[in-house]
C-alpha cells in the first residue's frame, strides 16, 4: 500500500489522533489520523481503500496485540479515538452509500442491569472492526431494542447482563425481537452466562470474548 496509507494505519495503531495531540510522545508534532485521512482523500485515494487498506489494518494490529496480551484496553481506546477522527472524513461516503460498513449492530445492557464495562468493550471492538454500532446504554427494556430494530432492520442485536436476576430479561427481549423479526440474530454475553443459557433462551450465541465474537460475525456474514 502507499506510504500515506501505511503512515495512516500506524497513526491508528498507535492512537495518534491529530497533529496537536501530545500522545504518543514519540510522534509529537507529526501529522495524525485526522490530517492524513483528509490528505489521502485529497490525493484521490478511494475511501474504500482508506478504510480497508489502512484504518482497519491499524485497528486489527492493536486488536491482535490485545489478544496476545501485548496491549491493554487503553491502547485500543486511543486507537479507536484516532479511528473516529479518520472516520469523520469518510462519513459522507458512508451516508451516500458509496462505501459500506460491515453492517449495523445494536447493543445494550438489559433492563435492571447497569453493568456496562463489558458491553462497552464489545462496542469498541465492533466499531474498530468496521461495524456501525448503535449503543442503547444500560437498563435497556425489550421494547427499546425492538423499536431501534425498526430503524435498523438488518442489524444484529447484542445484549449484556451481569446479574443472575437480569439474565432472564434476555429471554423476554429475545422473544420480543424474534417475534417481530425472526431472522434477526441475537447474541448475548456477560460473566454469569453460558452457551447453555443462550440455547435455552433461544438466542443465536454466547461469546465470552469480543475478539472471537467479531471473528464469528465475519465468518457467518
Amino acid at each position: 500500500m502507499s506510504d500515506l496509507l501505511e503512515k495512516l494505519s500506524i497513526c491508528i495503531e498507535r492512537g495518534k489522533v491529530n497533529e496537536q495531540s501530545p500522545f504518543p510522545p514519540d510522534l509529537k508534532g507529526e501529522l495524525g489520523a485526522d490530517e492524513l485521512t483528509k490528505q489521502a482523500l485529497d490525493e484521490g485515494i478511494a475511501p474504500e481503500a482508506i478504510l480497508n487498506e489502512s484504518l482497519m489494518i491499524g485497528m486489527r494490529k492493536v486488536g491482535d496485540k490485545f489478544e496476545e496480551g501485548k496491549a491493554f484496553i487503553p491502547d485500543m481506546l486511543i486507537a479507536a479515538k484516532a479511528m473516529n477522527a479518520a472516520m469523520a472524513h469518510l462519513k459522507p461516503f458512508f451516508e451516500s452509500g458509496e462505501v459500506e460498513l460491515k453492517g449495523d449492530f445494536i447493543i445494550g445492557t438489559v433492563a435492571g442491569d447497569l453493568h456496562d464495562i463489558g458491553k462497552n468493550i464489545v462496542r469498541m471492538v465492533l466499531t474498530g472492526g468496521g461495524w456501525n454500532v448503535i449503543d442503547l446504554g444500560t437498563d435497556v427494556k425489550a421494547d427499546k431494542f425492538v423499536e431501534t430494530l425498526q430503524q435498523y432492520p438488518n442489524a444484529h442485536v447484542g445484549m449484556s447482563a451481569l446479574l443472575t436476576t437480569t439474565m432472564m430479561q434476555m429471554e423476554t427481549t429475545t422473544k420480543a425481537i424474534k417475534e417481530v423479526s425472526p431472522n434477526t440474530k441475537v447474541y448475548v454475553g456477560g460473566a454469569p452466562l453460558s452457551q447453555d443459557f443462550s440455547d435455552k433462551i433461544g438466542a443465536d450465541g454466547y461469546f465470552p470474548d469480543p475478539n472471537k465474537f467479531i471473528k464469528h460475525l465475519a465468518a457467518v456474514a
Partner: protein
Amino acid sequence: MKNYSKLTIANHEELVMGISPHPVRCGNDLTIGDGKVYPEINFTLPTMLITKETFGEVRKHYTEMMSNILERSKHLNVPGLVVEFEQLPPMTETPEWGAEITELIKTKLNKFYDETNIPNALRVTVLDLRDADHPPLLRSGEPTEKTLKGFELCAQAGADILSIESVGGKEVHDQALMYGDLYGMVASLGILAHRDMSWLWNQITEIANKYDIISGGDSACGFSNTAMQLAGQGMLPSVLAALDRAASAPRSLAAFEQGAVGPSKDCAYEGPIIKAITGYPISMEGKSACCAHFSPLGNIAAATADLWSNESVQNVRLLSGNAPEAFMELLTYDCRLYNTALDEGNALMMRNMLVKSDIPHSVEALMLEPKVVIEIAQSIVKNKGGYNQTKASVQTAFTAIENALQQNVLSISNIEREWMDKLKKAIDAMADSEEEALDYLKTMYGDVFKPEAYGL
C-alpha cells in the same frame, strides 16, 4: 466530623487478623475484632427475575439459604457469624421488598441465637441506585430518595450493620480507568467520590444512630475491584489496578470520618489501610470467595481480617448440598485455623505466611502487605483533603512497587514495566491543588458528570 491525623495502629506487627483496637459490638451479642475471626456469609438468588409474581419464590430462596447456613453453623459450632444481605436492584427499587427480606433473615437469626447462644449479626447492604441517571444527580431525585429510604426501612426491619457500595465519582472513574488515565482516577476518587462519600455517610450514620445500630462502611468495589477484575482478564495493567487500590483508601475513609465504625465491607480491599488508620474492624474476602470472583489476593486478604467472607454465591445445588451451606462450612474452617493461631499466640506468624504466600505472584497483593499498608496509611494521615491524601497514597504505593521490583520480591511483565514509566510520568504531572485537579476533570470528563451533584 472525625479527623484522622495519626494512625491508630502504627506498628505493622500489631496489624493482625481478628484484633482491632476498637471492636464493634452488635446484633445478638457479637463483638467483632475482639480476638477472633468470624465468618461473614453472603448469598444471592440463582438465575431468576424478581417481580411481584416471583416474590414468593424469592422468599423461599432466602428462607432455604438461611436454614441451610444456620444448620451448618450449628453443626460446626461456629463461634459467631455475620450474615450479609446484599440487595439486588429491585429490592431497593421497591424498598419494602428489601425490608421484608431483612426482617425474614433477622427473625431467623434471633431464633438461632435463642436456641444456640451463638452470637450473630445481620449486615444489610443497600443498593446504590443513584447512578441510574446519566450523568447522576446523586444528591437529589427519585433514585436518591429510594436509596436512603432503603436504609431507613431496613434499619427498622432489623438490620444490625448498614453498608453500601456507593457510586459517587464512578461515572468519571470508569472513563479514566478505561483510558488508563491515572490522574483522572486519582482526581475522581479524591475529589468527587470523596465528597459524595462524606455527604452520603453523614446521613447513613444519622439513620444508624436513630435506630441504635451500626454504621458499617463502604467499598470502592466499583472502582478498584473493577480495575482488579479487568487486570485479571488481561485488559488493564496490574500495576494500574494496584495503584487504584491505594487510591481508593481516602475515599472509603470518608465514611469513618462521618461516623462509620466498621466492620468495613468484605469487598473493600482498602480495608487494611482503614484498619491501620481508624482501628476499626474490617471484613475481607479472598480464596474462599472463589465462588464470586477470581482473585490475586486469595491468602493475603485474610492477613488482617476480622471477618472472613465469601462475597456472594448463588443458591445452586452442589454435590454436598446447596452452595451457600457449602461456603459457610469453608469459611468456618478457615476461621477455625486463624483462631487457633490467635489462641496459640501464632497470629503474627500465620499472618506473615499468608502474606508471603501471595506477594511473589502479584503486584496487587503487595498493596495489602502490612508494612506497605502502614506506609500508605501514614501518607494519608499526613495529608489533608481527599485529593492530596489520594495523590499521596498513590505516590507511596508507586514507590513501594518500585522497591519491591528492585529487591526482586516480585516481578512483572515487560508491558507492565513500560506502564510503570507511563504511570511515573502521570504521577509527576498531577497538580498540587485540588482546584487544578478539578479543572482537569472538567475539561477531560465534563460531559459525564455534574459538579452540582457533588455540591461544587
